[in-house]
């Protein structure tokens, strides 16, 4: 028997699942830093691996903070200043925009809806930003606004899945899972992919948005909860058991497990011992990193954060009517995101629900709800960018903001034919919408343009694959070479075809 021992051990972890065709080892590199730096069964592999797997390229970003506004905010009321659309306000929509189009809710011939808010130019780049984002306007010179994004999906769940997993169906790994699979985590006491949700509901596509799909479940996003319960499920010891008691029980478990290992010799037993130890450490490290009360008042004010605040909207059956502009839940999550990446978490994903402003029921209008939602995030996001910059972390943290699609320049008309206060809305619009990125080698400015009413891109169109390719590229992964064999395909975040491209124009 001549198989080198280390290679055999490498194979010991369901080889195909970890290593696939992409060459031996990168999974183990990731896995190792994700889980533990010593004492586990995978440790020996590290010597055997080539330190840079074939897909690794020089990285700009160490970590990613992705702010997803679930429901999709209106680009026409936030980033796209369209005076021409204003002139068409309340007139019948020209046929050319309706023919052959599928809408989620618009029926018949709707009216055009001009921008509902004033725009102003900000910063040295002179970017037009809506009055709803005064704070963001102050930091806009750090941001690259991409106005020309389009997607293939026009319903929430498939569009969110396409954006986050590269496939409109359920069951594919999230971007955060891909990234931690490729790079691992930098903190042995914390998960590598953390999800924070606000707005009172999880996004339409549910927890599948941070599922690991066909990748091993260790790469699944771990949702850290901020609603007063355990930040990670089952993190607290049972009531009545102190840390000292837990330590005693854990020592007994480990002693008996070591005894078992001597008797049976299974390296998995050693892994289990180290995982129980890691769990014990996480019981302290996670609440610690999640505790924003230690931040200075100045820092809290920068974000608009309030430690310990639990919003009523977070547990309401329909939170939309409870939204308040000064609700700090999202701000708290932004501050947490900074703390998490500072602690070495690779990918922090924020979801904020409540951006689906159709105008068909109370609490989902452009005219009344959008200003509240914008207020909830404006100071928080500006605070996040400012804070990262002050700490010198913006250069190595990629911040991404956006929804799953855009909103129509037409008024949605299935409930109200005419403009009615509190019921002004826009339908889903997949053909052109705005997202932005900041930090980690992204060149600030504006990229892409749309036509006079913001219906179609006219310059530098950007697809979802391009965004995904660019994000992977910035974290040091070649998006074309980075894959995982499943169902007969080399599955990739950017999909099976090479339609995506890295947006080199926006790289510094």
């Amino acid at each position, binding site marked *: *028997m*001549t*198989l080198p021992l280390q*290679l055999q051990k*490498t194979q*010991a972890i*369901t080889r*195909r699942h970890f290593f696939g065709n992409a060459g031996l080892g990168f999974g183990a590199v990731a896995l190792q830093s994700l889980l533990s730096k010593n004492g586990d069964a995978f440790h020996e592999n590290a010597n055997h691996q080539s330190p840079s797997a*074939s897909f690794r390229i020089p990285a700009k970003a160490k970590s990613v903070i992705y702010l997803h506004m679930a429901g999709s905010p209106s680009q026409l009321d936030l980033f796209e200043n369209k005076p021409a659309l204003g002139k068409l306000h309340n007139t019948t929509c020209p046929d050319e925009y309706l023919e052959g189009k*599928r809408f*989620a*809710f618009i029926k018949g011939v709707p009216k055009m809806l001009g921008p509902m808010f004033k725009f102003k130019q900000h910063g040295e780049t002179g970017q037009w930003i809506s009055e709803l984002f005064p704070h963001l306007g102050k930091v806009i010179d750090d941001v690259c606004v991409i106005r020309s994004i389009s997607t293939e999906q026009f*319903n929430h*769940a*498939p569009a969110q899945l396409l954006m986050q997993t590269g496939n409109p*169906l*359920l*069951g594919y790994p999230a971007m955060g899972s891909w990234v931690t699979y490729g790079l691992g985590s930098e903190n042995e006491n914390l998960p590598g992919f953390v999800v924070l949700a606000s707005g009172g*509901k*999880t996004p*339409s*596509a*549910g927890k599948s948005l941070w*599922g690991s799909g066909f990748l091993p*479940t260790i790469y*699944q996003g771990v949702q850290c909860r901020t609603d007063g*319960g*355990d930040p990670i*499920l*089952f*993190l*607290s*010891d049972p*009531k*009545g*058991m102190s840390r000292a008691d837990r330590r*005693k*029980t854990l*020592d*007994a*478990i480990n*002693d*008996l497990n070591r005894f078992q290992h001597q*008797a*049976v*010799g*299974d390296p*998995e037993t050693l892994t*289990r011992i180290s*995982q*129980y130890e*890691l*769990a014990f450490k*996480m019981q302290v490290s996670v609440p610690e990193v999640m505790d924003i009360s230690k931040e200075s008042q100045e820092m809290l004010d920068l974000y608009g954060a309030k430690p310990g605040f639990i919003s009523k909207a977070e*547990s309401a*059956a329909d939170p939309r009517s409870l939204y308040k502009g000064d609700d700090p839940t999202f701000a708290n999550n932004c501050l947490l995101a900074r703390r998490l990446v500072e602690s070495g978490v690779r990918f922090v994903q924020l979801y904020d629900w409540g951006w689906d402003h159709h105008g068909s029921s109370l609490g989902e209008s452009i005219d009344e709800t959008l200003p509240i939602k914008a207020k909830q995030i404006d100071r928080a996001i500006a605070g996040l960018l400012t804070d990262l910059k002050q700490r010198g972390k913006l250069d190595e943290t990629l911040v991404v903001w956006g929804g799953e699609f855009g909103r129509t320049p037409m008024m949605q008309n299935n409930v109200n034919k005419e403009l009615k206060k509190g019921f002004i809305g826009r339908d889903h619009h997949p053909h052109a919408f705005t997202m932005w990125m900041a930090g980690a080698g992204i060149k600030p400015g504006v990229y892409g343009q749309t036509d006079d009413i913001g219906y179609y891109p006219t310059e530098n169109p950007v697809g979802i694959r391009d965004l995904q390719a660019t994000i992977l590229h910035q974290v040091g992964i070649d998006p074309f*070479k980075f894959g995982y064999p*499943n*169902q*007969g395909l080399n599955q990739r975040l950017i999909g099976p075809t090479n339609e995506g491209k890295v947006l080199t124009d926006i790289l510094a």
Partner: protein
Amino acid sequence: MSFQISKHLFVFPLFVVFGLGDILSAEDDMIDFNKVIRPILAKNCFACHGPDEGSREADLRLDLRTAAIDASAIVPANSDGSELIKRVLSDDPDLKMPPPDSGHELTDADIKSLRSWIDSGAKYATHWSFIPPTKKSLPAISDAGWPKHELDHFVLKKLEENKLSPSSAAKKLQLLRRVSLDLTGLPPTIEEADAFVNDASEIAFEKVVDRLLKSDAYGEHWSRMWLDLARYADTKGYEKDRHRDIWRYRDWVIDAFNRDMPYDQFTVEQLAGDLLPNRTSDQILATAFHRNTMTNEEGGTDNEEFRVKAVQDRVDTTAQVWMGLTMGCAKCHSHKYDPISIKDYYSFYAYFNQTQDNDMEGPFWPTPTAELSNKIADAKAAIAELSSKTRQRTGAFKTAFENWKKQFADQPLWGNVSLDSYTSKNGVTLTQNDDGKIIASGKQAEKDTWQLTFELSNAQPKPLPITGFRIEYFPQAKGGGDWPDKNVAIRELTAELVFPDGKTEALKLTNPRATFSQANWPIAKAIDGKKRVGWGLSPKYNEPHIGVFDFQNPILIDKITQGAKLRLTLDQEYGERLLLARSRFSVSHYPANWLKAQLKPNLERVFAEEVNADTQKVFGELKAAQSRLAKLESSVPKTPVMLELDPKNSRETKIHNRGNFLDQGEKVSPAVVEMFGKFPADQPASRLGAARWLTQPENPLTARVMVNRIWARLFGVGIVETEEDFGTQGLPPSHPGLLDWLAVDFRENGWSVKKLLRSIVLSSTYRQSSKMPSGDANVDPRNRLLSRGPRFRLSAEVVRDQALAASGMLSRKIGGPSVMPPQPGGVWKTTYSGEKWKNAIGPDRYRRGLYTYLKRTSPYPAMTTFDAGSGEVCQIRRVRTNTPLQALVTLNDTAFVEAAGALAKKMESLDGDLRTKLTYGFRTVLIRRPTDFEIDRLIDLYNSLKDSLDEAALLKAAGRETGDVQLVAVANVLLNLDETMTKP
């Protein structure tokens, strides 16, 4: 001699490079195309030079020998002259193959293998798994005493080739725990353990295996494997992800495993049970297998788009589950590695493209449980008996009836009332005939409101209080007039008394009943105070009908004698001329329960039902039985199933270019990929024929894939490790002869899964100890040579079930709707659906994991942490991870803390000292006896926790009021040991 040289030169470096790990056997002395060459070509070349015409470069394909030779890529016996070799050796980036930017690169060893293969004649071979399996003779072995079963010969042969010997047999209790967890997913009890230890007979273990295979827990455990494949879940998926009632399918699977339904039948019923001749309701239920696809209820979605996705999912899942083939990629382009073209894909798709479902939940089929079916049958029998009883008439009855009936001679049951006056808002003319009928004529108004005032004083021969009134409706044939037969729409009907002085008194109407009411327009709606709907008669408005109302307070005689008249107001403002064009009104003074809505009042029936005590009782029983039946029938679960479209509505199937359902190309007919066997000649070109094609002996894959799957569940890894891919991209089998022997034997044994399992667990291979040699001595680290028994972490469900079983809390109820054991608050924060997780109380809190409610977009966290899936797509195998989050579950999750509480209680209830109690607890979980070290360590822990734990709080968390809290903490430890989490 030359063979050996080539083996050393080429074969050894290869498997290092590929990490195949599968030790090549001595019988493969030559460079084997399938084992060595095909993987190189498939990985590096076929993407551009393979079966997919869409992505083929330079019109060259290397997957066919003739094509490769014709193109001079390969010149047999001349590697130097072969373009393929020149290209792979080239330094010119424009010529080099694979192209440098492809991410692929051949190693020196690859190139050597290719040269050697070309020089020895470049022989191609069909991919191993595409050739039907045959039972080869058992390999010769030296240690003839070791095998207990034929399969052991194959295993031992490979061990001997690798100069290894099998491990010693596992200890009895280790084996018992292993086989119990493997066959039933539950641990043995201490009593079972003692019985086995004390059974000295030769067949003691066989007896255990047979007992386990007979237990209901067997089907529960093995159905879980199948439910992963079936992508079973309790919700519909996508955005709304609302509840779906499909648990009857889950119970069907449990039952099929428990009855050991032959796998070919199991296959046919699930894929095409609805198309079987004389199909049973259970066979239709089986087709819910393919109704586990998701449906999208989000606003504005295109049903056809998601119907197509569901059908594609069925095709992909069928190919994966039965044949281990990844057909999915062929929905967009021809398969790059396996011989499946996009046309093959849509031809197979055509079989599945004819079902009625259309991204909606229906069609449904009533699928009562056996228990419910029995209850319904009992209720029906009782009704039949009672209704025959109601028809019996004794002499005494007849006499009594004749006497009773006499009263109607003086005073009929109903007396017509004459129309005193009327108003019509829209000018309709009403006239009353001598027979009392009121006929509308003149203007045929679209809608109208009438006030009809009736004389009461002459309605009855005797002046008696009036209890109710009746409306008779007549079609034109029975009543005449010039108004055509149309529906009526009495949106609201009110009654009042009008006195001569003009005063009025409202009359409350109750107990509305009619011979017929239109769907959603029941007569009760005519007196509900709301005008939206009322009493309608469609579609039966060309027959006479009767409606009857009671007065809540009868109209007393003195009011009649004062000259009060009855005024009815009929709101008929619906439109479309739905007016009561022919009618008659009558009143009665008899008891309300005598006044039936009957076209021909049946006095004998009234007497029997309402008056005569003996018969009245029987009618009462009948009524109760009927309402019981109605209740039972409405509780019958309805399950979404596969049903074929009416042939006149059948769909045309076309190729979807690049998988886009809006871009359809060439039309295709249903067909199978004939490389895997011809379509059975005597079978219909439907799903049924396709299902039978899967299970015919010519199919090279179906039996192999299933035995491999079962092997993998027992040993942790399949003989073919890539359970999901038996195609050319998959890994070759570690023991090809063993796989084929098992596959053929499975089929020859009538596709019996129980017999297959029995064979495997009774083998010497399975019965080995799982102890691993330490360090370098462990030359078989992944146990791919099967040099020891299997040892790996239990599945998510078994982790839970074992803790509940050991602590004595496990509910043994089988089947039924899924349940909601405790999960932390706030996990279900899902959009829109408003469905809530309600922590179960009582036995449903402690059901097997299999029954835990599975919401696709928010699966049960404790399960997914242990690698259970979410039921979104077919899951061929679960990965096994080992993470800190798992530790948090078993240490802290309520289910496990409560299990610790219950286990502590079991220990407490045993008489004896602490050592005795702890030994008992240890054995309850791990079955074997603890060593001194182990029990001493637990005693130390117990003592160290004295006065340390918060007694009240921890007991409460563990679901206890009083008890020994230190034992709870020790039980928590017992439920968290590595050995507990692991199959021994």
